[in-house]
């Protein structure tokens, strides 16, 4: 009796504890960008007490993921699915300062607790294979050749006790060729407490998400220990997407961009030649009006009941001067900075939002760029622009050139540039050079590059890892270049689409926080685009040629030598007569007998005239 009672008490206590300690909230931030784009940034965050997690008591924390993490002794996990590219020139700084995005494809890095490197590798294998199944991605292809152990670029985001920090191993794997699609979104949504049934997640639909100009899905799991409270395990799921407003507004049943009827074209009427049949288009000069239901094809079907009511589920970053229409019953709260507003949705209310275009000013002239900016919240300038491309041509060697531009007029930027290259790109480290645009010579590179960590590739075993700590002076552009050699793969190592080329993962740039007081390690993260490296590719009819060649060689060698070895030479007069001669002889003999017979016959005829001899 006593035992039963204590069990109940325990259960009750733990339930209470869990309900008190589990927190979940979600938020959608919408920000119109220049050139009729819209950034929609979904954030879902839930956490559970670490002690409850260790007792297998998951509440808002997804059980499927939690068990994998426990099984693989993972202390911190970051998983990214990214598609497209962020247009920093027009859109400005990245959302979350680039901390919630990866390079094209799938990126995974995690801190695992293990005694030795081998044990860490073993657990990493377990983790990638389990995540591969969970997210329907080819994460199991992150093998030794695609795994690196970054030294400088990453720091744990969570608070880890000192006892585990010493045994934590950071492993980083990337799959640049992985195409992110709907099958990755579905398991992602299943991790949410409200799934996609209620709340802002109802807007997430594969058709819209993967039609976006840029989109990134991120999962971050980390322990956080606020002062004076118990440690908690926090999972943050983020989806950022940039929608092309015009493309998204197209109805789903008629997605083909047929030319609009002539009278619907937006023309620049100020042109002297403007006429009914002549129209200088003015499409992109104005930011367009849109509503949530137009862009996403649906409205938010009532808020998720589990979410923390203190956090407004939807925010919109537009200046206060613009009017916004929302569904009935929704409370609008303007932020004091005058550049954003948030909306509280009462339960059981479907939320829609509509942003009409800015009021047209009469007599507008030119391209209208000036007026667009006043209607939008100007996004921050990124700390660094980076663009990476291949140089050279041909199938033997190549080069990589990364253009890094510091736009700031007075601050220098210190960052770590990390490349994890496949083993078949053998880089020449001595050719690595950084020069400031406009200057030639090597003295500049010494001052730019501060530290290099290089781990050379082993054929078929591991890739190249290159981490460079650099410092770029204000308002300057630096070219970081290095050369590499393309190696020839074995015949069976080519994929079926060998002539497409081989994807090279994005370079990871981590800008270090110059503010030493801030606990954050990185001030800004960005990734370059991935590259397509074409290797020397054989003509795949080669095996056929090889078989033919080998057979011929064997036939000639074996046949010929065997013949020489086994044959005995004899003098011509000793051997049998050659066929031709024999045939001639035979023919001669035949003719002779024929002749004989003829002669005999004639003789016989002559003889017949004589009395025939009596038959015997």
């Amino acid at each position, binding site marked *: 009796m006593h035992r039963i009672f204590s069990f109940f008490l325990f259960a009750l206590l733990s339930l209470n504890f869990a309900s008190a300690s589990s927190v979940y909230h979600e938020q959608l931030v919408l920000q119109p960008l220049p050139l*009729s784009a819209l950034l929609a940034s979904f954030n879902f965050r839930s956490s559970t007490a670490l002690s409850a997690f260790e007792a297998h008591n998951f509440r808002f924390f997804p059980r499927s993921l939690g068990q994998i993490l426990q099984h693989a002794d993972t202390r911190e996990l970051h998983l990214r699915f990214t*598609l*497209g*590219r962020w*247009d920093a*020139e027009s859109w400005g700084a990245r959302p979350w300062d680039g901390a919630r995005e990866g390079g094209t494809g799938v990126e995974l890095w995690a801190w695992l607790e293990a005694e030795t490197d081998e044990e860490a590798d073993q657990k990493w294998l377990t983790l990638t294979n389990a995540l591969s199944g969970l997210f329907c991605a080819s994460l199991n292809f992150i093998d030794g050749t695609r795994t690196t152990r970054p030294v400088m670029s990453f720091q744990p985001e969570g608070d880890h006790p000192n006892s585990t920090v010493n045994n934590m191993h950071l492993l980083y794997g990337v799959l640049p060729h992985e195409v992110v699609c709907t099958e990755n979104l579905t398991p992602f949504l299943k991790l949410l407490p409200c799934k996609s049934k209620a709340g802002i997640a109802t807007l997430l639909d594969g058709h819209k998400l*993967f*039609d976006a*100009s840029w989109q990134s899905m991120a999962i971050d799991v980390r322990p956080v220990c606020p002062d004076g409270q118990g440690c908690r395990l926090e999972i943050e799921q983020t989806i950022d997407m940039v929608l*092309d407003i015009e*493309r998204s507004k197209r109805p789903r049943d008629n997605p083909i*961009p*047929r*030319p*609009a*009827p*002539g009278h619907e*074209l937006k*023309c620049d009427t100020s*042109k002297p*030649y403007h006429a009914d*049949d*002549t*129209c*200088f*288009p*003015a*499409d*992109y*000069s104005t930011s367009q009006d849109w509503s949530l239901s137009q862009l996403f094809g649906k409205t938010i079907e009532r808020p998720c009941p589990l979410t923390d009511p203190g956090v407004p589920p939807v925010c919109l970053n537009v200046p206060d001067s613009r009017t916004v229409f929302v569904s009935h019953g929704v409370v609008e709260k303007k932020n004091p900075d005058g550049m954003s507003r948030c909306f509280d949705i009462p339960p059981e209310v479907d939320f829609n939002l509509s942003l009409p275009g800015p009021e047209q000013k009469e007599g507008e002239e030119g*391209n209208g760029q000036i007026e667009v900016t006043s209607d939008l919240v100007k996004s921050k300038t990124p700390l660094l622009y980076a663009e990476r*491309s291949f*140089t050279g*041509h041909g199938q033997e060697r190549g*080069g990589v050139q990364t253009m890094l531009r510091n736009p700031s007029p007075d601050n220098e930027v210190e960052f770590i540039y990390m490349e994890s290259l496949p083993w078949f790109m053998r880089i020449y480290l001595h050719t690595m050079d950084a020069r400031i645009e406009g200057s030639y010579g090597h003295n500049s590179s010494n001052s730019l590059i501060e530290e290099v960590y290089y781990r050379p590739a082993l054929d078929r075993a591991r890739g190249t890892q290159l981490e460079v700590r650099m410092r770029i002076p204000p308002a300057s552009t630096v070219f970081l270049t290095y050369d590499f050699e393309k190696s020839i793969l074995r015949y069976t190592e080519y994929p079926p*689409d060998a*002539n*497409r*080329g081989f994807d090279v993962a994005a370079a990871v740039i981590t800008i270090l926080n110059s503010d030493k007081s801030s606990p954050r390690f990185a001030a800004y993260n960005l990734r370059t*685009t*991935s*590259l*397509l490296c074409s290797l020397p590719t054989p003509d795949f009819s080669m095996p056929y040629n090889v078989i033919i060649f*080998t057979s011929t060689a*064997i036939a000639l*060698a*074996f046949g010929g*030598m065997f013949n*020489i*070895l*086994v044959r*005995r*030479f*004899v*003098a*011509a*007069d*000793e051997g*049998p007569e050659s*066929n031709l001669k024999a045939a001639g002889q035979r023919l001669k003999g035949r003719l002779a007998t024929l002749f004989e017979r003829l002669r005999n016959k004639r003789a016989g005829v002559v003889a017949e005239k004589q009395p025939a001899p009596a038959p015997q």
Partner: protein
Amino acid sequence: MPSTNAVSFNTSRVRSYVFRLPLFTRAVIIAIVAFWVIGVQSLWDVRTWGALIPDEIGITTLYRLNTFPFIHLNAFHAIMNILALTPLMERFEAEHGTLTSLALFFGPLTTIPSFIYLFVEKFVLRSNTSVMGASMWVFLLLGMEAIRTYKVNPYLVVATHNIPTWTTPIALLLCVAALVPSSSFLGHLSGLVVGYICGLGYLKFLAPPEKILRWVESKVNIFGRLPYYVNMDQKTYGRFGVLPSSGGSPIGGPTTAKGVVGTGALRLRRDPRILKLPPYLSLLCILVGVVWLFLLPLDDYSRRTYISENALLPGQVHTYFGGSDQNVFRAYKHEVNALVGKSNIECWLTGLCWSRINDKLESIVKGLGLKAGRQNFTYSAAGLVYSGENVYAILQAPRGDATEAIVLVAAWENVKQELNRNGVALALTLARYFKRWSLWSKDIVFLVTPDSIAGPQAWVDAYHDAHDSSRVDSLPLKSGALQGAIAIDYSQESRFESVHIVYDGVNGQLPNLDLINSVVSIAGGQMGMGVALQEMWHHNDQYPDRLRTMLRGMLKQGLGLASGPHSSFIPYHVDAVTLQPFGDGWQDEMAMGRVIEGTFRSLNNLLEHLHQSFFFYLLMQRERFVSIGTYLPSAMLVAINFTIMAIALWVKSGQPESTPAKAADGAEAAGETVTKLNTSTPAVERELFLPLGVVTICQFLAVIPLYLFNHAPENMLTPAFVIFAVFNAVLPHALSSVLTNYYAPSAQQYQLIKSFSLLLLGMFLASLATLNFSLALLVGLLASPLTFMRPWPQSPVLRAACTVLLNTVSPTAILVASAAYWRLDVGAILREVAFAWHVCGMNSPVVVWCVWWPAWLAGSISVLGKSEETKKKTSTVATVKTKAL
């Protein structure tokens, strides 16, 4: 020995051979087959039981030393070994008797090699590779046979080298090790070594003594009753190591036998008629080459084109360009027309006005939401400066990652310096239209260049970082790997009827045939407009039109000039074509736009770089082509004619003049022995220094025209050409007189001069034929008279005729003639060539001046040659006679 003397394959003989196989050989074959059959089942792994595995060898497992030859990896292995082993084993048994074979092959001949193998493998190499199979025996027996053959017939004569016959099994060993997977080199080697030792007779003591064998045979009667048993009396040879005699008959001397075999070829080789053959053979090669070319347009020799890359799916999508896009097009056309007046030539040179045009274009594309960049370039050629500024815009693929890109080029002026108004306006309209689609998997680059050759060249060079950064700017913006390019050349103002596809690249390089086929299929099949190639505006698909199209294509390919904005892309393995509307029809600009849209949709479908179809082809109609395998023999035959003649001259120069033949005419009655003696006299010493020197000087002189015509300023080109033409006419005479006066070359040296120059020519042209077929064929045909040129010391008339003929086919004369035929100015041609040389890297001048011209010069010198033959003849005859006697 039935097998060895078998001349032809005969089933009855094989059957009788198989039926008469001696006992031990049979037993071995049966054992091998039996073990293979046992190996088929999976219950008992016979291979691990019986193979020779170094680590498994112990006292109880010594049986492996004897079992491993019977066990094979698979049926193929077993069959191969049986085929190789049977004749060898049969002979061994026939020579030594069944009992000896049994004793030896179950004793020393198996165990010794296996011990050698075990020792080396286990203690030297320290590895553990298991071996099995009878191939060790094969090599052992081959080694024995080789030693015996060596004793009878020590050398194989290949050319002038004597190869000892005992090395043949080693060659075979290496061959097998290299070609047969998982064969044990060491195992074979140990077998072979023991075979050699055995063959040399050092293992005689191991064979059981004959006395004992006879005693055994007499005691054990059963042997005599066994079928196919070879007893001690039947065996062919006595003891081990005794030299064999052939098949029971006394030995006929091997040398005479060889002589019998060799005489046929030798007699043919020494036949004087052989040396008369090469000129006719050369002529035949040229004729066959030309006829071959003219056969190509026939249905039987050319093929219909087809789409090889399935991903392209040309013409499978609806194209939507049109409707209100036409209104936009008209507006852009107005904008372009407004810019036309500004591009006057003075501004063109300063480069300032260019920026005004590009300012406007850049503002338009930026208004469409594209990224724009600009690039300045300056080229100089023939004293002229070509400069300008390219402007380009990148439409980033909506969901793409800057890994791949396709290019749409609209040059402001086409190659004929006509303004490409419609083309530029169409490119802008298409940029706006393409921006609306979300399906692009590759970035699209829109490039507007001031001219059609230098601008695209500068852009492509800079895109691949192959530019000279002092003259050409680097690109501020880049995208991914270029997968294809389409250029629009649309200067025609009225409506058009058909599309003309221009596809020739620099240096005769061509784009992938799939690209052309896609355009043909989209324009011709889907849009229903005509498609023309090589300016054949009307093509009836009959033989004359096909031939004309093909010859025009070959001429363009041979010249190697850039034919449009697309040409610059092809050297970088970016497949590109230019599309030109032509004719009077009812197709408007929107139809042209739809053709480009369809082509871009096809290119967008590509998963891999275009690689499937042909890169070497001749098109003779839009749907008919020949590929390299079919047309290459034509140019190769023409090139080979020079090589044949060169070899013939080399051989001839090594033989004493034509006197022996003449002498033989008189002395024929004296009998064959005399001629035989004559022909077998050693070759005449060749004096190589002078001929080599002359040919080298001719080659070096080629630098003069090459440098002159590529670096002379424009106004000096025509005078320079006239001076060079005169110099060219005089040069052979001058060189020839210098030669005859100072060096007095003999007829042999003239032959050698010609031989070397023809050898070089043939070599160069044969290699060129694989790169630029048409150029090799053109030069080969124009140089073909050189094959038949020779000195005419006795006949001034013939010499003059030959000189005139050579001067009409000299490079300069051909240049003047073609300029007159096409009504062009020679100076203008040379200016174009210099421009192409400096800007596009065209290499035809190298072929003309460094391959063709030196050969022509050497040919002219040899025609004008006056050897001191009459004087020398007597003396040479005298020397020859003394040598002969």
